């Protein structure tokens, strides 16, 4: 048995002395391989008498297990060391920049449109759109603009060339023609918002030849001016995300409504900063009124049976007020710096439940 003890010492020493994984594997082959020393000794067991075989066999098996365990452990240690060495070699400078990705932006006009739709949609308004090029009837006559009205002049309105019949189409000066198209194509009750591009011959610090309007139209049998006030109050508070915004309805004049009103909201201007809903200043934001009987008639309705209200405002204007954008003209300049600064992300979808604005 001393022989086995010697062998154990020798083999374990060989295992622990192996300098690397390859040397260790050679030790394994030399001991456990087909012609390995322990394998050979196992083969020799057959020639021993049963008693000697039993005791020697047990001892040999124990030795074999012990050496195998030593081999495994030594092998695992080599693998760990090798992995650690590899990881060390794979070290990177994690302060380097990640690969670039480009983020796009939604134009503030589109975002404002989505906000406005979220609010009026909740009140049951559908969305209607119409053509940018309009005829005189839809842009003026049906809206009760008298002949000779200044808006019908080239000073204010863009005209296309004279047509064969002598008439001239215009670039719509407001989105109201969409109201006419809506009323002529369906029966009350109606709740629509009309929005889109509008055009006027004007270009200076505060006017651009193209801008966007949003208008609302409600026609039913029993809609009165109190509903107009209620509707706009709810809109203003939801849109500006401020409770109890002071509002002032002032009598005014538009050809297509009577009574007509202009609406101011309360605001303060301190240190060049505009705050909606506080202070003692007033800011005009929209025009509105009860739809003029002549408009109803030109759409084939009987003003004694149906009535309703309409309102309109500039989308750029309400976007400028809410988001503090100082200059109207910048909306149309496509300046990347402006788009990045005032634009919105694709996931900024306005909802009333989640808030309109991030």
């Amino acid at each position, binding site marked *: 048995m001393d022989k086995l003890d010697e062998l154990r010492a020798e083999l374990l020493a060989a295992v622990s002395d192996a300098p690397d994984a390859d040397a260790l594997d050679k030790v394994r082959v030399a001991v456990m391989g087909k012609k390995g020393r322990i394998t050979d000794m196992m083969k020799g067991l057959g020639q021993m008498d049963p008693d000697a075989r039993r005791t020697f066999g047990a001892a040999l098996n124990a030795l074999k297990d012990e050496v195998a365990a030593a081999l495994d452990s030594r092998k695992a240690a080599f693998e760990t060391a090798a992995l650690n060495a590899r990881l060390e070699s794979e070290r990177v400078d994690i302060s*380097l*920049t990640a*690969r*670039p990705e*480009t983020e*796009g*932006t*939604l*134009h503030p006009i*589109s975002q404002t449109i989505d906000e406005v*739709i979220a609010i*009026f*949609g*909740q*009140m*049951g*308004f559908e*969305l209607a759109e119409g053509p940018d*090029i*309009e005829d005189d009837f839809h842009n003026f006559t049906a809206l009760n603009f008298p002949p*000779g009205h200044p808006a019908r002049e080239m000073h204010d309105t*863009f*005209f*296309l*060339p004279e047509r064969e019949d002598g008439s*001239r*189409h215009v*670039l719509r000066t407001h989105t109201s023609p969409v109201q006419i198209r809506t009323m002529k194509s369906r029966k009350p009750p109606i*709740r629509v918002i009309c929005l889109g*591009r509008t055009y006027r*011959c004007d*270009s200076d610090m505060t006017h651009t*030849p*193209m801008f966007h309007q949003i208008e609302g139209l409600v026609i039913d049998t029993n809609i*009165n*001016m*109190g*509903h107009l*006030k*209620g*509707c706009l109050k*709810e809109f203003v508070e939801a849109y500006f995300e401020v409770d109890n915004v002071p509002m002032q*309805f002032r*009598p005014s*004049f538009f050809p297509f409504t*009577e*009574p007509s009103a202009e609406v101011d909201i309360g605001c303060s201007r301190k240190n060049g900063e505009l705050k909606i809903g506080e202070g003692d200043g007033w800011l005009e934001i929209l025009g509105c009124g*009860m739809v003029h009987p002549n408009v109803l008639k030109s759409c084939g309705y009987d003003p004694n049976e149906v*009535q309703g209200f309409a309102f309109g405002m500039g989308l750029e204007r309400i976007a400028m007020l809410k988001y503090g954008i100082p200059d109207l003209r910048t*909306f*149309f300049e*496509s*300046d*990347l710096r402006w*788009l*990045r600064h005032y*634009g919105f*992300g*694709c*996931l900024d979808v306005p909802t009333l439940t989640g808030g309109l604005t991030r």
Partner: protein
Amino acid sequence: MKFTLSWLKDHLDTTASVAEIGKTLTMIGLEIEEIIDPSSKLDGFVVGHVLTAEKHPDADKLRLCTVTNGTDTLQIVCGAPNARAGLKVALATPGCVVPATGDKLKKGKIRGVESQGMMCSTRELCLGEDHDGIIELPLDTPVGVPLASVLNIDPVFDISVTPNRADCLGVRGVARDLAAVGLGTLKADPLVAPFASTFASPRKVSIAEDAQGACPVFVGRTIRGVKNVESPQWLKDRLVAVGLRPISALVDITNYVTIGWARPLHVFDADKLAGDMVVRFGQGEESLEALNDKTYALTTEMVVIADQAKAQSIGGVMGGLETGCTESTTTVFLESALFEPRRIAKTARALALESDAKHRFERGVDPQSPVWGAELATRLILDLCGGEASDLVIAGGMPAGNGPISFRPSRVKQLVGIEVATEIMVGMFERLGCDVLVNGDDALTVQPPSWRGDLAEEHDLVEEVARLNGYDNLPVTPLPRLSMPKQVLSAAQKSLRLMTRTLVGRGLHETVTWSFLPRAQAVLFGGGQAELVLANPISSDLDAMRPSILPNLATAAGRNAARGFPNLGLFEVGPQFHGGEPGDQTRVIAGLRAGKTGPRHWDAKPRAVDVFDVKADVLAVLKAAGVNTDSLQIVAEAPGYYHPGRSGSLRLGKQVVAQFGDLHPAVLKALDVKGPMVGFEVFVERLPTPKAKATKARSLLQASAFQPLERDFAFVVDSAVAADAMVRAAKGADRQMITDVAVFDLYQGPNMPDGKKSLAVTVTLQPMEKTLTDAEIEEISGKVIAAIEKATGGTLRS
């Protein structure tokens, strides 16, 4: 429209403050633009009495005064040359804010002597320009009373009058509206009473037959023996306060009546007129030097007032210089006429000529006013200039105003939602000048006054009640609505929003550009037709309706490149135009990528943008719209503004739904921008409308339990063969088993015969029921090879 408080009070008996009047004007629809009230800045200023005034001990030009404010005696150092004992002065004590500087007054020492207040000049109080000395108040002014109470300060109101309220272009009309809302009572107006003439007018008037529509009535009068003096101070003050320059009494009177009563007038120097007056149209070759020293050509569309020699005045717009009144005028011919508003507007626009008369005539002057206007002016002329007046000479007749209106008081509640008692409404109408007849419980007959041309129908009166009752008093009623909101966007509207936000997610910036562009650019993109060129563009740069959005995006990218941002993606959702009729427009989502794919980076090397970047954009947009991209056909055809070899279109059936590619280098050059630029256009309205599904449930997922396997096939094909043809052929070889085919290699080069290329695809097989045997795989491979060979004429590379 400007007027002063005292002018208003000539017509309105009221005790209301300036602020109250201002607020009320705004709330009845006569919106205040500005109130100029210097007295509002004189809080704390009182009348002082200078007791003594000695030379300052240490300064030759300063005076050391003692001044009493009625209770205390103050020591004040004053530099004004007129500071002397006995004066009544405008006294400011510490705490007062000096209007001209906005500084708060403090006690101070001047050359070593304490000064406990300040005596003010006109300029320091913003009451005028005088700064030669301190204000000298009348010596009987009581000491210690507020300064504002003894100064003759007349606050000025500036209101904006809506086009329907021509009556409020006169102070009296404004006063009547304030009286109607209950802010005072309208005073009687004795000046308009008929005037006793002393002789027959030597000058007659007539209206040419064809001009009777343009000038329904002309009232004239000769006034002789006048002296055209300087106007009295009160009249000059009022005119200056509203921004007019006093000229002479005769001219000032016409301005005074124009602003006071909205009744424009004209005075001719009768000695310069030749014979009788006639109202007629201009004669084409005619011209007139007007009172503003400019000469105007008078067309046959314009009404003129002529004597027997020539046109002497542009009717309702401006008089002639030659026959205007001067200091030496002794005989006047007064004109008080009526002109048709539209023609006045047209004439003034054609001549680019503004005047107070034109402003009123184009909005509508009281048709009953020519006679009383003449009487009123005569009375003022005789008061200020003396002389005697002839009888009135009248041509034409004063038109009737609007007829009576049947009014149902119940309509007020119906239309504006507020209950107003009928007797209150009757009172409002009467104060506005209407005659009211009560015919029953819900029936009034209301005869509007001649000056309210805007009151013609029942709803006009409803507006008056709402206005005078106050919009603030209208109820605030939420719109009745469903307890749970419904979807309001149509499928197409919803889809457009998804497409838009998809592009934002892909790194493009949405922009909004003009619907018009320079015609030369329109031509480059297939537009510029005559019917789409604006008759009156804002500038020649913006004269044609755009046939495509791409040129705007390209020039926008060019501007950004010039600012140092050459690498970017832009897109716009909007109309492009193909004809001049309503509806001749197409909604397009157009995008453009320019420069490189990104910034320089230590690892990810940017490359120039190319056609496959925009192809991916287009497919993403179409997918967002719910298009099954497998059913799209791709063709290598696109409009000429794209690179002919690097562009293509996607079709659904026969419809081109999108096109994309490199922009043509010649187009980029013409737009003066640097490439590379790649663009795309998606024609939103040509996409199939997403159909509402009967159920929102998805079809059952069929996931195989067996592993998919891939087989690669490389073919040599003619260079002209489209990869898509090969992919489609492979897909068609076994539609059950083949779930995907992708091109993974393209080779053209030295080891290929001329005109050939190598294309390799990987084909994914997905068994559903069992693992495929080698024989089965071989069989499918054989079918794939055969199909590709047949479709492309290529040969399998071994």
